[in-house]
């Protein structure tokens, strides 16, 4: 079609050839069909909110990691052959080390820009996973994981977990004393698996730890296997965001069937493009200012050496916390040892992550809600979910504290044993306290919303009535504000119903259904939400007495 148009244009107009850009676009359209793709997607609308840019932070830091990582691969030697250091760093001259450590020293001290690129790579990894954590929490607290986005929630969760392991394998590559201690930790965790632990460890390390293989193997995992899977998941994640359209916060004119915001082209293209450079700039500035993982201070790894303050990067700090808080229990039977002190933390590591991953499915099962949701929840309107999320974050933070118990002890002049006992008790107590407190705060905020809708907003103007009473003047909210505060759907608790139906047949309510009913009562029953104000209530109050 476009070609015929052109033919007529050329024939009738003596203006000469079309501009180069147009000709290029025509060329591409004739082969790739870009016009129809662009027409369908260029005007795609995205809603505007700062919290919707958290995912972008992750995307861009991932891109930065890939770019800097490619540069690092040019100089890194993933080998455990022993060499003698002869570079410019005096305190290590003449020390025997693996080629991996030697080449990382070379990157840090001799390759032009090497140390800066290394630090950008590492800092953006720290920011990437922290960004995913916050992004995941944003999605969780606004209920943006509900139908139809459960699959995308799982993709995002997998990206988070894979990010943790990609980070861990990368952190282990320089083969320095700190990361070597971390790899030893991992070996211990694998060994604690009953029956197959030893075999798994021998398989991974190609024999006894540390052997001569793990750097090369981790290298392949770190630069090829995990990032490959992550890139695939990332694309799928973004395609689904496109396909589902972005969620938006409720407000006047915003419904489940539309998206209010700005078009991808030109507004979001410009914004997102600009934001990429802002992210790169901030991370580069952090990397230029602050040191990260100074391996020359730690020295090369030797299994007979260890340093105190040996922690993993923050995203594995939770695993470290579990192992530090766990008492060293073990069971001996028939000459075998079951190392519970390590195996239980290993299991809990999975459990802590899994409860967060599975919440969307638990919630949809309890509510039985099969409808699509494109409007984000305000966290207060889902008190149980919000309380659960806050409790999980608190749980996670307790474990992070456990992972840094020695730093906490020395810097706050505490006993490390006291810190560890605090973590052990808090592991059980803090999530419960956080749950209760958060739920009550949400309920309080719901009451406040109800009050605002029915009685208006406090103006701070005090009036004295003729009979001496003082009252504060309340100004009614405008229609839009009232809509925002009352638009949400309140779930009704799932009732088991009568035991015998109208035909006299006994209903069978299995234990699963009973559990569902119990949970539903807990989540949406009287104690868990404040009925939102109705139009009648509002009419009654506003018509009745005029003064407040």
């Amino acid at each position, binding site marked *: 079609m476009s070609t015929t148009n052109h033919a007529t244009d050329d024939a009738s107009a003596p203006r000469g050839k079309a501009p180069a850009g147009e000709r290029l676009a025509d060329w591409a359209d004739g082969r790739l069909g870009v016009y129809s793709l662009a027409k369908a997607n260029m005007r795609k609308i995205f809603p505007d909110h700062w919290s919707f840019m958290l995912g972008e932070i992750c995307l861009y830091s991932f891109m930065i990691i890939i770019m800097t990582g490619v540069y690092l691969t040019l100089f890194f030697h993933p080998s455990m052959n022993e060499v003698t250091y002869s570079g410019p760093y005096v305190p290590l001259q003449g020390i025997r080390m693996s080629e991996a450590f030697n080449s990382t020293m070379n990157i840090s001290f001799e390759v032009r820009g090497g140390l800066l690129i290394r630090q950008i790579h590492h800092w953006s990894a720290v920011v990437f996973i922290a960004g995913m954590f916050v992004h995941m929490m944003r999605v969780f607290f606004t209920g943006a994981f509900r139908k139809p986005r459960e699959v995308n929630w799982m993709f995002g969760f997998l990206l988070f977990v894979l990010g943790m392991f990609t980070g861990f394998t990368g952190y282990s590559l320089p083969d320095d004393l700190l990361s070597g201690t971390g790899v030893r930790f991992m070996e211990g965790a694998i060994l604690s698996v009953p029956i197959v632990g030893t075999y798994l460890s021998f398989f991974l390390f190609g024999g006894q730890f540390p052997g001569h293989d793990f750097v090369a193997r981790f290298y392949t995992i770190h630069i090829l296997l995990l990032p490959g899977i992550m890139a695939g998941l990332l694309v799928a994640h973004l395609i689904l965001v496109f396909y589902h359209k972005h969620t938006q916060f409720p407000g006047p004119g915003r419904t489940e069937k539309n998206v209010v915001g700005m078009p991808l082209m030109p507004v979001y293209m410009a914004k997102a493009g600009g934001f990429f450079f802002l992210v790169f700039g901030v991370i580069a500035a952090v990397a230029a200012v602050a040191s990260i*993982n100074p391996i020359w201070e730690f020295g090369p790894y030797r299994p007979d050496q260890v340093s105190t303050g040996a922690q993993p990067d923050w995203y594995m700090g939770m695993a470290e916390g579990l192992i530090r808080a766990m008492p060293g229990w073990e069971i001996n039977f028939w000459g075998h040892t079951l190392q519970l002190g390590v195996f239980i933390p290993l299991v809990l590591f999975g459990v802590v992550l899994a409860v967060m991953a599975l919440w969307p499915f638990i919630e949809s099962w309890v509510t039985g809600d099969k409808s699509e949701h494109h409007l984000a929840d305000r966290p207060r309107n889902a008190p149980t979910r919000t309380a659960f999320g806050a409790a999980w974050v608190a749980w996670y933070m307790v474990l992070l504290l456990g992972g840094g118990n020695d730093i906490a002890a020395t810097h706050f002049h505490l006993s490390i044993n006291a810190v560890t006992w605090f973590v052990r008790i808090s592991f059980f107590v803090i999530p419960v306290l956080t749950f209760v407190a958060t739920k009550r705060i949400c309920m309080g905020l719901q009451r406040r919303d109800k009050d605002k809708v029915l009685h208006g907003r406090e103006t701070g103007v005090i009036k004295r009535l003729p009979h001496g009473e003082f009252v504060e003047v309340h100004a009614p909210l405008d229609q839009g504000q009232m809509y925002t505060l009352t638009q949400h759907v309140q779930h009704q608790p799932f009732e088991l119903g009568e035991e015998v139906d109208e035909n006299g047949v006994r209903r069978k309510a299995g234990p699963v259904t009973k559990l569902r009913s119990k949970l539903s009562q807990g989540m949406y029953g009287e104690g868990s939400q404040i009925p939102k104000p109705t139009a009648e209530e509002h009419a009654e109050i506003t018509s009745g007495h005029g003064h407040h």
Partner: protein
Amino acid sequence: MKKLSVRRRHPLAALVVLLFALAATGGLYAAFAPAEKAQADSSQSLAIEEGKKLYSVGCATCHGTSGEGTKTGPSLVGVGSAAVDFQVGTGRMPAQQPGAQIPAKKVAYSQAQIDQLAAYIASLGPGPSVPTKAQYSPGGADIANGGQLFRTNCSQCHNASGKGGALSDGKFAPTLQGVTPKHIYEAMLTGPQNMPNFPDTTMPEKDKKDIIAYLGEVDSGKTPSEGGLELGGLGPVSEGLFGWIFGLGTLIAVAVWVAAHTTKARKS
């Protein structure tokens, strides 16, 4: 002279010569040596005397009136002058209060007083004495070997770059930054408080020097930090905190800023 030569074969002549010789050596000895010895003796005993006085005021409460130790302080018999020079010279002693570990603080005595105290404690029983400058000065030592020794023997408590770390029940390994070579040497020699000691039989003087040289190179405060801010040199905990607050925190602030600057849809 004739008389002398006549009597030289007298039976008592040998005895007379012997008496003369004895008198001469005795007299010479009396003229030179004893005077010196007497002087030195009196200054040493004066130092011990003064040290004992200082001891009675500042230390006897916990360590007993003659260093025999009490429930609150260990016996000081045989700890040697090196231990005193370290504990008092770094301000750990006299202790503010008993506890899991006595921290370093402002030094309470002058070096002369510390030497007097050390002399008194050394007089209670033989122990390691204060090292000489030649023993602890790091000049010409092997820094790389010092690093290797440090990572093998010290870093499990003091951290790979000497930043310190936690021990059980409120005890801790202090940071080694700013500790003088003499005090590091004395600490290795005497094993103060919760630290094990490394006598010359397990760690020869040369190795101690190498370690001191390594610490001077990597942890002296003048050491350049190649990567930028050190963040306390504590490893991933402080890095994680910094990354969350200044990395992600800044990025979220930037995101809020970007989102706030947009062409808003007209409100209906």
